């Protein structure tokens, strides 16, 4: 399982009407300081607890394939967190090359030829982090996707332009013979996954080694702290 990036207040967080970050509330399981009596926060906590009940019901003893569902709750919460901080929309498919990007004049809108397919950055980053972690002795952290040559920042909840993309992924690395070789293998894994599994037009991948760990490559996932 990929490491979650270190949570930091982000401007693409889901924000409750009271201003509290829903993602942070989910992280802590309780309203932030000063929001103890806030009805929005209480509703959100209540909804979160209700989801836990639903998940617990699904895992109740006696259900078939009980063993198969051992990590069910963790996966549900992982997906929910992905939706809490979706990030910008990243284009799927091959980038347009000088045609204007939204179909040709005379094209029939709504046909499969017109590309209006997207993936949230959080969902794509989760897949790319997992790809990086298939390299022995690598733990993945933050993963950002932006237009190649564009700004490192993207307006929250906006769509990235339908252009070739650039990925920057941070990794922690165990004791390995060559950091350069490891980073290169991670880069290739990310590129291959973006193409073969996601269908994103990634033109460049930057791999940043942000931590060296004195532990065996088989050590369990642990969050990268910055």
């Amino acid at each position, binding site marked *: 399982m990929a490491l979650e990036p270190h949570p930091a207040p982000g401007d693409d967080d*889901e924000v*409750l009407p009271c201003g509290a970050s*829903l993602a942070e509330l989910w992280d802590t399981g309780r309203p932030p300081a000063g929001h103890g009596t806030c009805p929005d926060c209480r509703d959100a906590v209540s*909804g979160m607890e*209700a*989801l836990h009940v*639903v998940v617990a019901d699904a895992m109740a003893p006696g259900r078939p394939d009980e063993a*198969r569902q051992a990590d069910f709750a963790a*996966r549900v919460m992982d*997906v*929910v967190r*992905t*939706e*809490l901080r*979706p990030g910008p*929309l990243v284009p*799927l*498919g091959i980038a347009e090359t000088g045609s204007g990007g939204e179909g040709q004049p005379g094209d*029939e*809108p*709504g*046909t*499969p030829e*017109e590309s*209006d*397919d*997207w*993936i*949230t950055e959080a*969902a*794509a980053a*989760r*897949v790319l982090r997992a790809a990086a972690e298939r390299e022995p002795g690598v733990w993945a952290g933050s993963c950002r996707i932006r237009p190649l040559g564009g700004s490192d920042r993207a307006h929250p*909840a*906006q*769509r990235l332009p339908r252009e070739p993309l650039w990925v920057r992924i941070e990794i922690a690395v165990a004791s390995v013979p060559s950091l350069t070789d490891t980073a290169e293998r991670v880069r290739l894994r990310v590129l291959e996954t973006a193409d*073969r*599994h*996601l*269908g*994103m037009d990634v033109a460049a991948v930057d791999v940043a080694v942000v931590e060296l760990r004195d532990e065996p490559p088989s050590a369990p996932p642990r969050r990268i702290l910055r």
Partner: protein
Amino acid sequence: MTLRYTPAPTTPGPARRLALAAAEAARRVPGVAYLSPGVRGGDVRRARRVPDQAAGVTVTTREGGWHVRIHLAVYEGHHVASVAGAVRAAVVGALRSAMPTWPDGSGQEPRVGPPAGARAELVAVGVVVTAVLAAPR
């Protein structure tokens, strides 16, 4: 454009009809795990009792036509962009059968079925993948 919680249309009418048709078509596409309505504002307790078959589909009018957006999760092992394209193609086909005659807000009950005189550009379909998750074993 928003990824915040965007409820499917619930009032009976053309938008609701389009949303239901789109949802049904999208669910049938191999690789689609579920339609994803988002999390903010969703009432899990209510959803548990009354699941909305159109949850995850938004319908808006734009530039004189309908814009249908499907939010969904995809199973690992499928090419995500291909699944999104297949969903869009399936939904376009389904909506051509179910779309109302004209989204002009005239209050007239729309006809269902291939609309006489309706043009294909009345409907545009977009797909947003919100999660990629392990397929059930």
